[in-house]
Protein backbone atom coordinates (compact mmCIF):
# COMPACT_ATOMS: atom_id res chain seq x y z
CA UNK A 1 0.00 0.00 0.00
CA UNK A 2 1.22 3.42 -0.81
CA UNK A 3 1.13 6.20 1.71
CA UNK A 4 1.35 9.94 1.63
CA UNK A 5 3.87 12.00 3.54
CA UNK A 6 4.68 15.68 3.68
CA UNK A 7 8.27 15.70 2.51
CA UNK A 8 10.86 18.05 1.17
CA UNK A 9 11.86 17.29 -2.41
CA UNK A 10 15.24 16.15 -1.11
CA UNK A 11 13.57 13.63 1.17
CA UNK A 12 11.14 12.63 -1.57
CA UNK A 13 14.17 11.76 -3.68
CA UNK A 14 15.72 9.76 -0.84
CA UNK A 15 12.50 7.78 -0.38
CA UNK A 16 12.46 6.98 -4.09
CA UNK A 17 16.07 5.81 -4.01
CA UNK A 18 15.18 3.57 -1.08
CA UNK A 19 12.27 2.05 -2.97
CA UNK A 20 14.55 1.41 -5.94
CA UNK A 21 16.66 -0.83 -3.69
CA UNK A 22 19.97 0.66 -4.83
CA UNK A 23 23.16 -1.20 -4.00
CA UNK A 24 25.78 1.51 -3.66
CA UNK A 25 25.40 5.17 -2.69
CA UNK A 26 28.37 7.50 -2.56
CA UNK A 27 28.02 11.17 -1.80
CA UNK A 28 29.58 14.25 -0.35
CA UNK A 29 27.61 16.92 1.47
CA UNK A 30 26.87 20.15 -0.34
CA UNK A 31 24.07 22.63 0.21
CA UNK A 32 21.26 22.33 -0.87
CA UNK A 33 21.61 18.64 -1.75
CA UNK A 34 22.83 17.44 1.64
CA UNK A 35 19.55 16.30 3.16
CA UNK A 36 19.09 13.75 0.36
CA UNK A 37 22.09 11.77 1.46
CA UNK A 38 21.55 12.44 5.15
CA UNK A 39 18.20 10.74 4.78
CA UNK A 40 19.71 7.89 2.78
CA UNK A 41 22.40 7.35 5.40
CA UNK A 42 19.60 7.13 7.98
CA UNK A 43 17.81 4.51 5.89
CA UNK A 44 21.01 2.47 5.65
CA UNK A 45 21.82 2.95 9.33
CA UNK A 46 18.34 1.78 10.30
CA UNK A 47 18.52 -1.24 8.02
CA UNK A 48 15.62 0.03 5.91
CA UNK A 49 17.82 0.07 2.82
CA UNK A 50 20.32 -2.69 2.12
CA UNK A 51 23.04 -0.69 0.43
CA UNK A 52 26.67 0.28 0.81
CA UNK A 53 26.70 3.92 1.82
CA UNK A 54 30.11 5.42 1.12
CA UNK A 55 30.68 8.81 2.71
CA UNK A 56 33.47 9.95 0.43
CA UNK A 57 35.98 12.76 0.69
CA UNK A 58 34.87 14.71 -2.42
CA UNK A 59 32.26 14.80 -5.15
CA UNK A 60 34.92 13.69 -7.57
CA UNK A 61 35.31 10.54 -5.56
CA UNK A 62 31.54 10.21 -5.12
CA UNK A 63 31.03 9.84 -8.85
CA UNK A 64 34.19 7.72 -9.17
CA UNK A 65 32.90 5.28 -6.55
CA UNK A 66 29.55 5.14 -8.24
CA UNK A 67 31.22 4.53 -11.62
CA UNK A 68 33.29 1.69 -10.15
CA UNK A 69 30.24 0.06 -8.58
CA UNK A 70 28.09 0.57 -11.66
CA UNK A 71 30.82 -0.97 -13.83
CA UNK A 72 30.32 -4.05 -11.71
CA UNK A 73 26.59 -4.14 -12.44
CA UNK A 74 25.42 -2.59 -9.17
CA UNK A 75 22.50 -0.14 -9.03
CA UNK A 76 24.00 3.14 -7.88
CA UNK A 77 23.06 6.62 -6.74
CA UNK A 78 24.70 9.91 -5.97
CA UNK A 79 23.51 13.45 -5.50
CA UNK A 80 25.13 16.85 -5.66
CA UNK A 81 24.81 20.57 -6.37
CA UNK A 82 26.80 23.42 -7.81
CA UNK A 83 30.54 23.27 -7.15
CA UNK A 84 30.17 19.57 -6.44
CA UNK A 85 28.81 18.98 -9.91
CA UNK A 86 31.57 21.12 -11.35
CA UNK A 87 34.12 18.99 -9.51
CA UNK A 88 32.54 15.91 -11.06
CA UNK A 89 32.73 17.42 -14.52
CA UNK A 90 35.28 15.13 -16.19
CA UNK A 91 33.60 12.06 -14.73
CA UNK A 92 30.21 13.03 -16.11
CA UNK A 93 31.55 12.43 -19.60
CA UNK A 94 33.21 9.21 -18.51
CA UNK A 95 30.05 7.77 -16.96
CA UNK A 96 28.04 8.43 -20.11
CA UNK A 97 30.58 7.20 -22.63
CA UNK A 98 31.16 4.12 -20.50
CA UNK A 99 27.38 3.68 -20.71
CA UNK A 100 26.82 3.25 -16.99
CA UNK A 101 23.20 3.62 -15.84
CA UNK A 102 24.02 5.83 -12.89
CA UNK A 103 21.24 7.99 -11.49
CA UNK A 104 22.07 11.29 -9.84
CA UNK A 105 19.83 13.92 -8.34
CA UNK A 106 20.91 17.52 -8.57
CA UNK A 107 19.51 20.23 -6.34
CA UNK A 108 20.47 23.01 -8.72
CA UNK A 109 22.52 25.82 -7.28
CA UNK A 110 24.45 28.75 -8.63
CA UNK A 111 28.15 28.42 -9.40
CA UNK A 112 30.77 30.60 -7.74
CA UNK A 113 31.64 33.47 -7.77
CA UNK A 114 30.14 35.18 -5.90
CA UNK A 115 29.58 32.34 -3.48
CA UNK A 116 25.87 31.72 -3.45
CA UNK A 117 24.01 28.70 -2.13
CA UNK A 118 20.74 29.42 -3.87
CA UNK A 119 19.08 28.22 -6.98
CA UNK A 120 19.87 28.66 -10.58
CA UNK A 121 20.70 26.07 -13.22
CA UNK A 122 24.23 27.22 -13.92
CA UNK A 123 25.70 24.03 -12.45
CA UNK A 124 23.91 21.56 -14.73
CA UNK A 125 23.80 23.88 -17.72
CA UNK A 126 27.59 24.10 -17.60
CA UNK A 127 27.56 20.32 -18.00
CA UNK A 128 24.73 20.04 -20.47
CA UNK A 129 26.95 18.53 -23.16
CA UNK A 130 28.06 15.65 -20.95
CA UNK A 131 25.88 12.99 -22.58
CA UNK A 132 23.61 12.36 -19.59
CA UNK A 133 19.87 12.28 -19.86
CA UNK A 134 18.78 15.47 -18.08
CA UNK A 135 15.27 15.79 -16.67
CA UNK A 136 14.03 18.92 -14.90
CA UNK A 137 11.12 18.44 -12.54
CA UNK A 138 8.76 20.91 -10.92
CA UNK A 139 7.45 19.30 -7.74
CA UNK A 140 8.50 16.95 -4.96
CA UNK A 141 6.11 14.31 -6.29
CA UNK A 142 7.54 14.56 -9.75
CA UNK A 143 11.08 14.32 -8.36
CA UNK A 144 10.13 11.20 -6.42
CA UNK A 145 8.52 9.56 -9.43
CA UNK A 146 11.22 10.66 -11.85
CA UNK A 147 13.98 8.98 -9.84
CA UNK A 148 12.10 5.70 -10.28
CA UNK A 149 11.56 6.36 -13.97
CA UNK A 150 15.22 7.30 -14.30
CA UNK A 151 16.44 3.86 -13.24
CA UNK A 152 14.01 2.15 -15.58
CA UNK A 153 15.18 4.36 -18.44
CA UNK A 154 18.90 4.24 -17.66
CA UNK A 155 18.98 0.47 -17.28
CA UNK A 156 17.17 -0.32 -20.56
CA UNK A 157 19.48 -2.36 -22.73
CA UNK A 158 18.86 -0.03 -25.68
CA UNK A 159 19.71 3.05 -23.60
CA UNK A 160 22.33 2.47 -20.87
CA UNK A 161 22.89 6.16 -20.31
CA UNK A 162 23.19 7.86 -16.93
CA UNK A 163 20.33 10.12 -15.86
CA UNK A 164 20.41 13.39 -13.93
CA UNK A 165 17.20 14.44 -12.20
CA UNK A 166 17.38 18.20 -11.67
CA UNK A 167 15.31 20.34 -9.35
CA UNK A 168 15.58 23.88 -8.04
CA UNK A 169 17.77 24.15 -4.97
CA UNK A 170 15.83 25.35 -1.89
CA UNK A 171 12.81 26.36 -3.98
CA UNK A 172 12.07 22.65 -4.41
CA UNK A 173 14.80 20.86 -2.48
CA UNK A 174 13.78 22.34 0.88
CA UNK A 175 10.06 22.75 0.24
CA UNK A 176 7.83 20.31 2.07
CA UNK A 177 4.72 19.18 0.29
CA UNK A 178 2.52 16.11 0.11
CA UNK A 179 4.16 13.22 -1.69
CA UNK A 180 2.64 9.87 -2.39
CA UNK A 181 5.38 7.38 -1.66
CA UNK A 182 5.83 4.54 -4.14
CA UNK A 183 6.46 1.43 -2.11
CA UNK A 184 9.45 -0.79 -2.76
CA UNK A 185 7.33 -3.80 -3.70
CA UNK A 186 5.52 -1.88 -6.43
CA UNK A 187 8.65 -0.11 -7.56
CA UNK A 188 10.61 -3.32 -7.95
CA UNK A 189 7.80 -4.78 -10.01
CA UNK A 190 8.23 -1.77 -12.29
CA UNK A 191 12.00 -1.94 -12.04
CA UNK A 192 13.15 -5.54 -12.31
CA UNK A 193 16.82 -6.44 -12.14
CA UNK A 194 18.47 -7.71 -15.26
CA UNK A 195 22.01 -8.64 -16.14
CA UNK A 196 23.77 -5.90 -18.03
CA UNK A 197 26.25 -6.68 -20.80
CA UNK A 198 29.86 -5.55 -20.48
CA UNK A 199 30.37 -5.32 -16.74
CA UNK A 200 33.34 -6.34 -14.61
CA UNK A 201 32.82 -10.07 -14.36
CA UNK A 202 35.20 -12.87 -13.41
CA UNK A 203 33.67 -15.30 -15.89
CA UNK A 204 33.92 -12.87 -18.78
CA UNK A 205 36.90 -10.68 -17.99
CA UNK A 206 36.55 -7.58 -20.12
CA UNK A 207 38.66 -4.44 -20.31
CA UNK A 208 36.66 -1.30 -19.47
CA UNK A 209 37.57 2.28 -20.24
CA UNK A 210 39.90 1.57 -23.12
CA UNK A 211 42.13 3.99 -24.90
CA UNK A 212 41.04 4.63 -28.47
CA UNK A 213 43.10 6.49 -31.03
CA UNK A 214 41.76 8.52 -33.97
CA UNK A 215 40.82 5.27 -35.72
CA UNK A 216 38.19 4.28 -33.13
CA UNK A 217 37.47 7.15 -30.71
CA UNK A 218 34.73 8.75 -32.82
CA UNK A 219 32.92 5.45 -33.34
CA UNK A 220 32.80 4.84 -29.58
CA UNK A 221 31.38 8.30 -29.03
CA UNK A 222 28.83 7.79 -31.77
CA UNK A 223 27.39 4.86 -29.84
CA UNK A 224 26.31 7.32 -27.16
CA UNK A 225 24.93 9.73 -29.75
CA UNK A 226 22.86 6.88 -31.14
CA UNK A 227 21.59 5.80 -27.72
CA UNK A 228 20.54 9.35 -26.93
CA UNK A 229 18.42 9.55 -30.06
CA UNK A 230 16.40 6.65 -28.65
CA UNK A 231 15.82 8.32 -25.29
CA UNK A 232 12.69 10.40 -26.04
CA UNK A 233 10.68 7.41 -27.25
CA UNK A 234 12.10 5.22 -24.48
CA UNK A 235 11.15 7.76 -21.83
CA UNK A 236 7.64 7.92 -23.25
CA UNK A 237 7.40 4.16 -22.92
CA UNK A 238 8.80 4.21 -19.40
CA UNK A 239 6.34 6.97 -18.51
CA UNK A 240 3.45 4.95 -19.94
CA UNK A 241 4.46 1.87 -17.98
CA UNK A 242 4.79 4.05 -14.91
CA UNK A 243 1.26 5.28 -15.43
CA UNK A 244 -0.01 1.71 -15.71
CA UNK A 245 1.64 0.88 -12.40
CA UNK A 246 1.14 4.10 -10.47
CA UNK A 247 -1.61 6.01 -12.24
CA UNK A 248 0.48 9.13 -12.91
CA UNK A 249 2.40 10.18 -15.98
CA UNK A 250 4.52 13.18 -16.83
CA UNK A 251 5.49 12.97 -20.49
CA UNK A 252 8.45 14.60 -22.16
CA UNK A 253 7.03 18.05 -21.49
CA UNK A 254 4.16 19.80 -19.79
CA UNK A 255 1.96 22.35 -21.48
CA UNK A 256 -0.64 24.63 -19.97
CA UNK A 257 -3.17 26.58 -22.01
CA UNK A 258 -0.67 26.41 -24.85
CA UNK A 259 -2.95 25.25 -27.65
CA UNK A 260 -4.13 28.67 -28.84
CA UNK A 261 -1.47 30.80 -27.20
CA UNK A 262 0.11 33.68 -29.10
CA UNK A 263 2.67 34.18 -26.37
CA UNK A 264 4.24 31.04 -25.01
CA UNK A 265 6.26 31.07 -21.82
CA UNK A 266 8.96 28.43 -22.04
CA UNK A 267 10.75 27.55 -18.84
CA UNK A 268 11.97 24.66 -16.72
CA UNK A 269 11.38 23.41 -13.21
CA UNK A 270 9.83 25.40 -10.39
CA UNK A 271 9.34 28.63 -12.33
CA UNK A 272 7.04 26.74 -14.67
CA UNK A 273 4.84 25.93 -11.69
CA UNK A 274 4.47 29.55 -10.61
CA UNK A 275 4.04 30.53 -14.26
CA UNK A 276 0.73 28.68 -14.46
CA UNK A 277 -0.80 31.20 -12.08
CA UNK A 278 0.61 34.04 -14.17
CA UNK A 279 -0.95 32.42 -17.24
CA UNK A 280 -4.32 32.13 -15.48
CA UNK A 281 -4.26 35.76 -14.39
CA UNK A 282 -3.29 37.01 -17.84
CA UNK A 283 -5.92 34.82 -19.50
CA UNK A 284 -8.48 36.52 -17.26
CA UNK A 285 -7.24 39.79 -18.76
CA UNK A 286 -7.69 38.32 -22.22
CA UNK A 287 -4.02 37.79 -23.02
CA UNK A 288 -3.56 34.69 -25.13
CA UNK A 289 -0.68 33.22 -23.21
CA UNK A 290 0.32 29.65 -22.45
CA UNK A 291 3.16 27.69 -20.95
CA UNK A 292 5.50 25.02 -22.25
CA UNK A 293 7.73 23.28 -19.74
CA UNK A 294 10.35 20.93 -21.16
CA UNK A 295 10.79 18.02 -18.78
CA UNK A 296 13.30 16.08 -20.86
CA UNK A 297 15.98 18.66 -21.55
CA UNK A 298 18.76 16.39 -22.83
CA UNK A 299 18.58 14.84 -25.30
CA UNK A 300 16.39 17.54 -26.83
CA UNK A 301 13.26 15.91 -28.21
CA UNK A 302 13.64 18.05 -31.31
CA UNK A 303 10.47 17.07 -33.15
CA UNK A 304 8.34 17.55 -30.06
CA UNK A 305 9.74 20.99 -29.31
CA UNK A 306 9.38 22.02 -32.92
CA UNK A 307 5.79 20.90 -33.11
CA UNK A 308 4.77 22.35 -29.76
CA UNK A 309 6.57 25.68 -30.04
CA UNK A 310 5.88 26.43 -33.68
CA UNK A 311 2.27 27.50 -33.32
CA UNK A 312 2.99 30.39 -30.95
CA UNK A 313 3.70 33.86 -32.31
CA UNK A 314 6.38 34.66 -29.79
CA UNK A 315 8.30 32.52 -27.35
CA UNK A 316 9.14 34.12 -24.01
CA UNK A 317 11.90 31.88 -22.73
CA UNK A 318 12.78 32.23 -19.06
CA UNK A 319 16.32 30.98 -18.53
CA UNK A 320 17.56 30.31 -15.01
CA UNK A 321 21.20 30.24 -16.15
CA UNK A 322 23.61 32.44 -18.03
CA UNK A 323 25.66 31.44 -21.01
CA UNK A 324 28.38 34.03 -20.69
CA UNK A 325 29.24 35.61 -24.00
CA UNK A 326 26.44 33.90 -25.91
CA UNK A 327 23.31 35.36 -27.44
CA UNK A 328 21.09 34.16 -24.62
CA UNK A 329 20.74 31.53 -21.93
CA UNK A 330 21.16 27.80 -22.54
CA UNK A 331 17.48 26.98 -22.97
CA UNK A 332 17.07 29.86 -25.40
CA UNK A 333 20.04 28.92 -27.56
CA UNK A 334 18.78 25.33 -27.62
CA UNK A 335 15.37 26.44 -28.84
CA UNK A 336 16.99 28.68 -31.44
CA UNK A 337 18.97 25.68 -32.64
CA UNK A 338 15.80 23.61 -32.95
CA UNK A 339 14.43 26.19 -35.41
CA UNK A 340 17.75 26.79 -37.19
CA UNK A 341 16.57 25.59 -40.56
CA UNK A 342 12.88 26.48 -40.25
CA UNK A 343 11.54 29.47 -42.10
CA UNK A 344 8.22 29.17 -40.30
CA UNK A 345 9.07 29.95 -36.71
CA UNK A 346 7.93 32.18 -33.87
CA UNK A 347 9.73 35.26 -32.65
CA UNK A 348 11.95 34.37 -29.72
CA UNK A 349 13.00 36.28 -26.65
CA UNK A 350 15.04 35.25 -23.65
CA UNK A 351 14.58 36.51 -20.12
CA UNK A 352 17.35 35.52 -17.79
CA UNK A 353 15.89 35.47 -14.30
CA UNK A 354 16.03 33.73 -10.97
CA UNK A 355 19.84 33.89 -10.84
CA UNK A 356 21.47 33.18 -7.50
CA UNK A 357 18.11 32.31 -5.95
CA UNK A 358 16.42 35.62 -6.89
CA UNK A 359 12.71 34.98 -6.43
CA UNK A 360 10.65 34.81 -9.60
CA UNK A 361 7.17 36.00 -8.75
CA UNK A 362 3.83 35.75 -10.48
CA UNK A 363 3.95 39.50 -11.03
CA UNK A 364 7.34 39.33 -12.72
CA UNK A 365 6.26 36.50 -14.99
CA UNK A 366 3.23 38.56 -15.99
CA UNK A 367 5.57 41.46 -16.68
CA UNK A 368 7.72 39.23 -18.87
CA UNK A 369 4.66 38.16 -20.85
CA UNK A 370 3.58 41.80 -21.29
CA UNK A 371 7.04 42.79 -22.50
CA UNK A 372 6.89 39.93 -25.00
CA UNK A 373 3.43 41.08 -26.04
CA UNK A 374 4.80 44.52 -26.90
CA UNK A 375 7.57 43.00 -28.99
CA UNK A 376 4.99 40.86 -30.74
CA UNK A 377 2.98 43.99 -31.58
CA UNK A 378 6.10 45.52 -33.11
CA UNK A 379 6.61 42.27 -34.99
CA UNK A 380 10.35 42.43 -34.57
CA UNK A 381 12.79 41.43 -31.82
CA UNK A 382 15.36 44.14 -31.29
CA UNK A 383 16.97 42.71 -28.23
CA UNK A 384 16.75 38.94 -27.93
CA UNK A 385 18.16 38.53 -24.46
CA UNK A 386 16.97 40.52 -21.47
CA UNK A 387 18.88 40.20 -18.21
CA UNK A 388 15.64 40.60 -16.34
CA UNK A 389 15.60 42.19 -12.93
CA UNK A 390 19.23 43.32 -12.78
CA UNK A 391 19.26 46.63 -10.93
CA UNK A 392 20.65 49.35 -13.18
CA UNK A 393 19.80 47.64 -16.46
CA UNK A 394 17.31 49.39 -18.76
CA UNK A 395 15.13 47.08 -20.78
CA UNK A 396 13.15 49.31 -23.07
Amino acid at each position, binding site marked *: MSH*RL*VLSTNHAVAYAVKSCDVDVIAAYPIT*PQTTVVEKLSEFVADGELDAEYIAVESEHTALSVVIGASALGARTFTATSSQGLALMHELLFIASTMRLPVVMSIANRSLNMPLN*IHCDYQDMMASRDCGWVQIYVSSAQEAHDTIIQAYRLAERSDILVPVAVCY*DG*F*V*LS*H*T*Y*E*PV*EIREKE*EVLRFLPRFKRPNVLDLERPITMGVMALPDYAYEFKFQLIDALTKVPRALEEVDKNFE*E*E*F*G*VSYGLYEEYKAQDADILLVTLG*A*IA*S*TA*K*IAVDKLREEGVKVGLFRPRLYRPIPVDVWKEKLRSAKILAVVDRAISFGAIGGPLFTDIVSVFANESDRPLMMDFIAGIGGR*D*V*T*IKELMDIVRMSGKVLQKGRVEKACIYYGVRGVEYE
Partner: protein
Amino acid sequence: MTAHIEARKKLKAYLSIGVLLKGLKIEGCMLIEVRWHGRGGQGAVTAAEILASAAALEGKWVQAFPSFGAERRGAPVQAYTRISEKLILDRSFIYEPDIVVVLDESLLNADRSNVLMGLKPNGKLVVNSSREPHVLANMLRFNGDVAAVDATSIAIEVLGVPIVNTAILGAVARIIDTPRKESIIEVMKKKFPPTVAEKNLKAFTIAYDRTIIGRL
Protein backbone atom coordinates in the same frame (compact mmCIF):
# COMPACT_ATOMS: atom_id res chain seq x y z
CA MET B 1 -7.33 -4.65 -14.59
CA THR B 2 -6.10 -5.16 -11.08
CA ALA B 3 -7.63 -3.33 -8.19
CA HIS B 4 -4.62 -1.24 -7.43
CA ILE B 5 -4.48 0.15 -10.95
CA GLU B 6 -8.16 1.00 -10.65
CA ALA B 7 -7.44 2.83 -7.44
CA ARG B 8 -4.57 4.67 -9.07
CA LYS B 9 -6.75 5.82 -11.95
CA LYS B 10 -9.21 7.25 -9.47
CA LEU B 11 -6.43 8.97 -7.62
CA LYS B 12 -5.20 10.46 -10.86
CA ALA B 13 -8.63 11.91 -11.49
CA TYR B 14 -8.52 13.55 -8.09
CA LEU B 15 -4.99 14.77 -8.64
CA SER B 16 -5.96 16.35 -11.91
CA ILE B 17 -8.45 18.63 -10.24
CA GLY B 18 -6.02 19.28 -7.46
CA VAL B 19 -7.91 17.53 -4.71
CA LEU B 20 -5.90 15.24 -2.55
CA LEU B 21 -8.49 13.17 -0.74
CA LYS B 22 -11.57 11.39 -1.88
CA GLY B 23 -14.77 13.14 -0.95
CA LEU B 24 -13.21 16.50 -0.23
CA LYS B 25 -15.21 19.46 -1.45
CA ILE B 26 -13.58 22.39 -3.14
CA GLU B 27 -14.63 25.39 -1.07
CA GLY B 28 -13.85 28.28 -3.30
CA CYS B 29 -10.20 29.12 -3.23
CA MET B 30 -9.09 29.07 0.41
CA LEU B 31 -5.38 29.86 0.76
CA ILE B 32 -3.63 30.54 4.05
CA GLU B 33 -0.10 31.88 3.98
CA VAL B 34 1.94 31.86 7.16
CA ARG B 35 5.33 33.45 7.71
CA TRP B 36 7.45 32.37 10.63
CA HIS B 37 10.16 34.53 12.20
CA GLY B 38 12.63 32.93 14.53
CA ARG B 39 16.25 32.54 15.30
CA GLY B 40 18.39 29.71 14.01
CA GLY B 41 17.96 26.83 16.45
CA GLN B 42 14.46 27.68 17.67
CA GLY B 43 12.80 25.32 15.23
CA ALA B 44 10.86 27.73 13.02
CA VAL B 45 11.38 25.50 9.99
CA THR B 46 10.13 22.46 11.88
CA ALA B 47 7.10 24.38 13.10
CA ALA B 48 6.31 25.44 9.53
CA GLU B 49 6.57 21.83 8.45
CA ILE B 50 4.44 20.48 11.32
CA LEU B 51 1.67 22.95 10.56
CA ALA B 52 1.78 21.95 6.89
CA SER B 53 1.76 18.25 7.69
CA ALA B 54 -1.20 18.70 10.00
CA ALA B 55 -3.17 20.49 7.29
CA ALA B 56 -2.21 17.75 4.83
CA LEU B 57 -3.75 15.25 7.24
CA GLU B 58 -7.00 17.14 6.77
CA GLY B 59 -6.71 16.72 3.02
CA LYS B 60 -5.29 20.13 2.23
CA TRP B 61 -2.55 20.90 -0.23
CA VAL B 62 0.42 22.34 1.61
CA GLN B 63 3.84 23.82 1.21
CA ALA B 64 6.44 24.55 3.87
CA PHE B 65 9.79 26.02 3.10
CA PRO B 66 12.61 27.89 4.78
CA SER B 67 14.32 31.05 3.69
CA PHE B 68 17.97 30.30 4.22
CA GLY B 69 20.79 32.70 3.87
CA ALA B 70 23.99 31.46 5.30
CA GLU B 71 22.44 31.73 8.75
CA ARG B 72 23.80 30.01 11.77
CA ARG B 73 22.47 29.37 15.24
CA GLY B 74 21.05 32.55 16.67
CA ALA B 75 20.65 34.45 13.40
CA PRO B 76 17.16 35.62 12.40
CA VAL B 77 15.51 33.10 10.06
CA GLN B 78 12.21 32.91 8.26
CA ALA B 79 10.07 30.01 7.23
CA TYR B 80 6.84 29.79 5.31
CA THR B 81 3.71 27.65 5.24
CA ARG B 82 1.03 27.62 2.60
CA ILE B 83 -2.25 25.78 3.09
CA SER B 84 -4.79 25.52 0.30
CA GLU B 85 -7.81 23.62 -0.92
CA LYS B 86 -6.17 23.50 -4.34
CA LEU B 87 -2.87 22.22 -5.62
CA ILE B 88 -0.34 24.92 -4.77
CA LEU B 89 1.53 26.03 -7.85
CA ASP B 90 3.04 29.26 -6.60
CA ARG B 91 6.68 28.61 -5.74
CA SER B 92 7.69 32.18 -5.01
CA PHE B 93 8.12 33.50 -1.48
CA ILE B 94 5.24 34.76 0.61
CA TYR B 95 5.01 38.53 0.46
CA GLU B 96 1.54 39.12 1.94
CA PRO B 97 1.04 36.60 4.71
CA ASP B 98 -2.27 35.99 6.46
CA ILE B 99 -0.51 35.02 9.64
CA VAL B 100 2.85 36.02 11.04
CA VAL B 101 4.35 33.97 13.84
CA VAL B 102 7.18 35.44 15.92
CA LEU B 103 9.15 32.86 17.86
CA ASP B 104 11.38 35.36 19.61
CA GLU B 105 10.05 38.60 21.06
CA SER B 106 13.39 40.35 20.61
CA LEU B 107 12.83 40.15 16.86
CA LEU B 108 10.03 42.70 17.30
CA ASN B 109 12.57 45.31 18.31
CA ALA B 110 15.41 44.22 16.11
CA ASP B 111 13.44 43.39 13.04
CA ARG B 112 10.09 45.06 13.41
CA SER B 113 9.75 46.25 9.86
CA ASN B 114 10.58 42.78 8.55
CA VAL B 115 8.20 41.05 10.92
CA LEU B 116 5.17 43.07 9.93
CA MET B 117 6.08 43.44 6.27
CA GLY B 118 3.17 42.64 3.99
CA LEU B 119 0.98 41.27 6.80
CA LYS B 120 -2.58 41.67 5.61
CA PRO B 121 -4.60 44.29 7.54
CA ASN B 122 -7.06 41.59 8.58
CA GLY B 123 -4.20 39.19 9.22
CA LYS B 124 -3.19 37.66 12.51
CA LEU B 125 -0.08 37.91 14.59
CA VAL B 126 1.23 35.27 16.98
CA VAL B 127 3.97 36.35 19.35
CA ASN B 128 6.06 34.52 21.92
CA SER B 129 5.68 37.09 24.67
CA SER B 130 4.63 37.46 28.27
CA ARG B 131 2.98 40.78 27.40
CA GLU B 132 -0.74 41.23 26.84
CA PRO B 133 -1.94 41.08 23.22
CA HIS B 134 -3.26 44.63 23.29
CA VAL B 135 0.11 45.87 24.56
CA LEU B 136 1.83 44.15 21.70
CA ALA B 137 -0.72 45.44 19.20
CA ASN B 138 -0.26 48.94 20.48
CA MET B 139 3.51 48.63 20.42
CA LEU B 140 3.46 47.40 16.84
CA ARG B 141 0.58 49.66 15.76
CA PHE B 142 -1.17 46.57 14.39
CA ASN B 143 -4.95 46.45 14.09
CA GLY B 144 -5.57 42.73 13.67
CA ASP B 145 -5.85 39.86 16.13
CA VAL B 146 -2.83 39.20 18.28
CA ALA B 147 -2.22 35.90 20.08
CA ALA B 148 0.38 35.96 22.81
CA VAL B 149 1.90 33.27 24.93
CA ASP B 150 5.10 33.05 26.93
CA ALA B 151 6.40 30.09 24.95
CA THR B 152 9.95 30.48 26.23
CA SER B 153 8.91 29.93 29.85
CA ILE B 154 6.82 26.95 28.85
CA ALA B 155 9.62 25.43 26.78
CA ILE B 156 12.13 25.84 29.62
CA GLU B 157 9.62 24.50 32.12
CA VAL B 158 8.64 21.44 30.09
CA LEU B 159 11.53 20.71 27.73
CA GLY B 160 14.35 22.23 29.77
CA VAL B 161 15.58 24.13 26.70
CA PRO B 162 14.29 27.32 25.04
CA ILE B 163 13.26 25.57 21.84
CA VAL B 164 9.90 27.20 21.46
CA ASN B 165 8.53 25.83 18.20
CA THR B 166 6.12 23.26 19.63
CA ALA B 167 4.90 25.66 22.30
CA ILE B 168 4.26 28.46 19.81
CA LEU B 169 2.32 25.97 17.69
CA GLY B 170 -0.13 25.82 20.60
CA ALA B 171 -0.80 29.53 20.14
CA VAL B 172 -1.06 29.11 16.38
CA ALA B 173 -3.59 26.32 16.89
CA ARG B 174 -5.71 28.70 18.93
CA ILE B 175 -5.85 31.36 16.25
CA ILE B 176 -6.17 29.22 13.14
CA ASP B 177 -9.10 27.07 11.95
CA THR B 178 -7.14 24.84 9.62
CA PRO B 179 -5.48 22.63 10.67
CA ARG B 180 -7.22 21.61 13.86
CA LYS B 181 -5.42 21.11 17.16
CA GLU B 182 -5.93 17.33 16.92
CA SER B 183 -4.18 17.14 13.55
CA ILE B 184 -1.16 19.01 14.90
CA ILE B 185 -1.01 16.63 17.85
CA GLU B 186 -1.17 13.64 15.51
CA VAL B 187 1.71 14.94 13.42
CA MET B 188 3.84 15.63 16.47
CA LYS B 189 3.23 12.12 17.75
CA LYS B 190 4.49 10.70 14.48
CA LYS B 191 7.34 13.10 14.05
CA PHE B 192 9.13 12.73 17.35
CA PRO B 193 10.25 9.65 19.27
CA PRO B 194 7.71 8.81 22.03
CA THR B 195 9.42 10.47 25.02
CA VAL B 196 10.27 13.58 23.03
CA ALA B 197 6.76 13.67 21.60
CA GLU B 198 5.24 13.48 25.06
CA LYS B 199 7.17 16.51 26.32
CA ASN B 200 6.50 18.52 23.18
CA LEU B 201 2.81 17.71 23.30
CA LYS B 202 2.77 18.92 26.88
CA ALA B 203 4.41 22.18 25.87
CA PHE B 204 1.97 22.49 22.98
CA THR B 205 -1.08 21.88 25.19
CA ILE B 206 0.02 24.21 27.98
CA ALA B 207 0.68 26.95 25.43
CA TYR B 208 -2.65 26.31 23.76
CA ASP B 209 -4.41 26.82 27.09
CA ARG B 210 -2.37 29.84 28.17
CA THR B 211 -2.61 31.71 24.87
CA ILE B 212 -4.42 35.01 25.14
CA ILE B 213 -6.00 36.54 22.08
CA GLY B 214 -6.76 40.21 21.85
CA ARG B 215 -6.42 43.34 19.78
CA LEU B 216 -6.08 47.07 20.03
